[in-house]
């Protein structure tokens, strides 16, 4: 840090004296930290500080009114005997493991359909993207609840085909399907990213493959998938992390209770209920840290396994 060779390349031509160079460096350091100040303050006060204190709180009993009482690992051991906690883990994993791949498959399929020079591209892209912008809002959660309710349009539409499921909202076996449809509905954001990636794949690769007699499946497996793998990786990572944090829709659809029969008791919803309804803030902090650890491990696994299937070649990003 004392003699950075990359520093003040610009002053080399004027052959400055040593003191001037270091004065510039000192000025740069001062300016750097001054400009960084907003982020640095936020990072310390709103991220690092709270993370450390929630780690501490996770080892205590704390209800916001009395002083925190150290209880060691009790919160963590209690978690694994807490049936509602285990249920919330199951609900969330189910949602992440089924919903995310479905959403990405829909995104990729539609992106491939749209990846041509036909007219109307802009319109289709925008129309498919629109749900991503509003899908997580309270308004859409209300609409979803009404649509999937007793004799709502979904129930009626299915009855027309002789499928009588009744309302999905009140049926513990159907609520997950409804939540997954809500996330799949928002396939537009990853689709737009896929589309940008598909446009980067050189067309002559496909032409050469056609000459060699490759069909659409071979072309997909041998060209599209490997060439698109960095984008697939990015979307998979971001969507997975995102899916763990679903909150508003689950809260609204279940009236903030996670029902019926705990079928929409998502992890973050249970965390919220424990922390801000029961005021068991130590317990909720333990849940929060467990989530960080799990998301961290998943991110790590993604990066480790990515070496075997993600190809970074040339200038494709």
């Amino acid at each position: 840090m004392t003699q950075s060779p990359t520093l003040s390349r610009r002053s080399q031509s004027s052959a400055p004296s040593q003191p001037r160079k270091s004065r510039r460096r000192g000025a740069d350091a001062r300016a750097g930290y001054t400009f960084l100040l907003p982020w640095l303050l936020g990072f310390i006060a709103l991220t690092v500080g709270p993370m450390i204190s929630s780690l501490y709180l996770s080892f205590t009993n704390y209800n916001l009114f009395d002083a925190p009482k150290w209880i060691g690992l009790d919160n963590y051991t209690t978690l694994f005997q807490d049936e509602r906690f285990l249920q919330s883990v199951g609900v969330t994993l189910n949602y992440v493991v089924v919903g995310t791949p479905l959403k990405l498959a829909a995104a990729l399929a539609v992106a491939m359909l749209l990846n041509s020079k036909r007219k109307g591209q802009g319109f289709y892209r925008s129309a498919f993207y629109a749900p991503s912008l509003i899908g997580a809002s309270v308004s859409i959660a209300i609409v979803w609840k009404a649509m999937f309710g007793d004799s709502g349009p979904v129930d009626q539409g299915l009855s027309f085909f002789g499928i009588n499921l009744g309302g999905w909202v009140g049926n513990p076996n159907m609520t997950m399907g409804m939540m997954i449809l809500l996330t799949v509905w928002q396939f537009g954001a990853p689709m737009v990213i896929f589309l940008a990636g598909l446009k980067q794949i050189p067309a002559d690769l496909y032409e050469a493959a056609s000459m060699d007699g490759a069909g659409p499946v071979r072309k997909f497996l041998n060209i599209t998938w490997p060439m698109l793998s960095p984008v697939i990786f990015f979307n998979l990572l971001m969507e997975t992390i995102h899916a763990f944090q679903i909150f508003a829709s689950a809260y609204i659809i279940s009236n903030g209770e996670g029902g019926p029969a705990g079928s929409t008791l998502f992890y973050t919803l249970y965390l919220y209920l424990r922390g801000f309804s029961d005021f068991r803030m130590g317990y909720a902090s333990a849940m929060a840290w467990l989530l960080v650890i799990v998301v961290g491990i998943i991110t790590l696994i993604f990066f480790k396994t990515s070496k075997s299937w993600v190809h970074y070649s040339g200038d494709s990003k």
Partner: protein
Amino acid sequence: MTTTATPVQSTPGTTSADYNPKSESVTAKRIKSAIFHIVALALVAMVLYPALWMIASAFKPNSEIGGANNALWSSNFSFDNFATAMDGIGGVSTLTFFTNSLILAVGAVVGTVLSASVSAYAFARINFPGRGLFFGMMIATLLLPFHVVIIPQYIVFQQLGLVDTYVPLLIGKFLAADAFFVFLMVQFMRGLPAELDEAARIDGAGHVRIFRSIMLPLMKPALISTSIFSFIWSWNDFLGPLLYLNTPEKYPLPLALRLFVDQTQSSDYGAMIAMSVLALLPVLVFFLVFQRYIVEGVSTQGLKG
């Protein structure tokens, strides 16, 4: 919907009179194109159905929503639901909720644009010890689940007596806590030629001048994307206001909607949906006006919806 037509220009030189193998491929192309548009439009109709249903229901009398009458459009078209929705809840007019949402969203835009652009300038353009380390940490916060900080943050704001004010909801925006926007601006600034600041430096300009007179004007596209997304995210935010606001007079629209749902308990679906439409209206208007910026922003920066 103006793009549904599928005009295929016939190649010049091919008159309709003389048969030419080329015209066959033109027909084949036209059929293929028609199939593409039929499939794509069918998908669009499916995807947009919930939005259409929402808008149509808002104009229907209560008895017809989810009743035996399954038609999307009702003949009993009326604005009654909107009138009920505008009345508000518990003596607070819906206009107040709108104003609150607007204050929060505008505050979020101003705070985010200011703090993210300044911080991004430090990351992208100034050489200082520790820059790489801090940049890595900023990227790490992108992946960090937000829930790990909400409990301690709440405790601190509670002890400072700031619960039920907008401070907890806005302070993060002024401290560049949405790392995504900092990252977006860093990426954008790195794409601007370094010769610009070098020339300005030789002319004796300091970082403040370079930032204000050179960087900010050139960063307009990034600033616009940031403004649009921070506005919409703030407008749709539910968890933040749910944690910190207790007085209905201070509620933004998403919280007001929840209150509305709690109080009406599905007895007045029409008004509930009308209010949902009203709450989404600014987002929809934003989307129609700034479509290009929004979709481009997503495809180049990987911004989330």
